[in-house]
């Protein structure tokens, strides 16, 4: 079980994180999720990501650990960027390796769902209309809660 969590301003390389897990033993299935800033050409959107860093580090580690235990993973890597991000910029990477595809898919979804409601990050949208903080979504809350019953 290899957990790797990074929070920072730098961009990340999917390949680099993928290559880091490929050599590992039980890694027949790898699932990667990348979240990016949506491309609203007309609005010239940028996102500003704020973070309570030391708490976020702990929360992401805990989520990764829970995922390892519940989905029998050989590796989990979570990268979350902070700061000002332009259109199409990468925001978040979740990459998991497992012996089987079902557990790899479920683990990656679990991590994203719980991250969305538990990890202390906040997004502010700036575009041609001005600035606003993103509101938390009920659908995210539901997506996160379903794991209580699944696990």
């Amino acid at each position, binding site marked *: 079980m290899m957990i790797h969590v990074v929070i920072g301003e730098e961009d990340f390389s999917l390949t680099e994180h993928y290559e880091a897990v490929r050599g590992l033993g039980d890694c027949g299935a790898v699932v990667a999720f990348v979240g990016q800033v949506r491309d609203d050409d007309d609005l010239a959107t940028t996102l500003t990501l704020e973070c309570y860093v030391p708490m976020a580090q702990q929360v992401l580690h805990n989520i990764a650990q829970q995922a390892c235990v519940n989905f029998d993973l050989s590796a989990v890597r979570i990268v979350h960027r902070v700061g000002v991000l332009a259109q199409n910029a990468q925001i*978040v990477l979740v990459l998991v390796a497992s012996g089987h595809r079902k557990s790899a898919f479920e683990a990656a979804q679990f991590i994203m769902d719980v991250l*969305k409601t538990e990890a202390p990050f906040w997004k*502010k949208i700036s575009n041609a209309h001005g600035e606003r903080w993103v509101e938390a979504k009920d659908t995210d809350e539901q997506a996160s809660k379903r794991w209580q019953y699944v696990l």
Partner: protein
Amino acid sequence: MIQVLYFARFKEVFGVAQERLPSFDTTDALLKYLIDRGDVWAAELDASRSWRMAVNQQVVHGCAALADGDEVAIFPPVTGG
């Protein structure tokens, strides 16, 4: 003394990212102190609004005990990912 941190909308509306305050016995006592400042403090920290509080980087639900040196964070629902 305790350290109180504000994030995202709260940091902007309160006009402060963090402050040192005298110790309080509980989070409820701290909250009463902040709400008594009135204005945006009373408006934003109203119990009917949804926001969260963490003590030493652990989210607390309801009232929690505080000790000297604690780090308390007050923030809106999270929206990362």
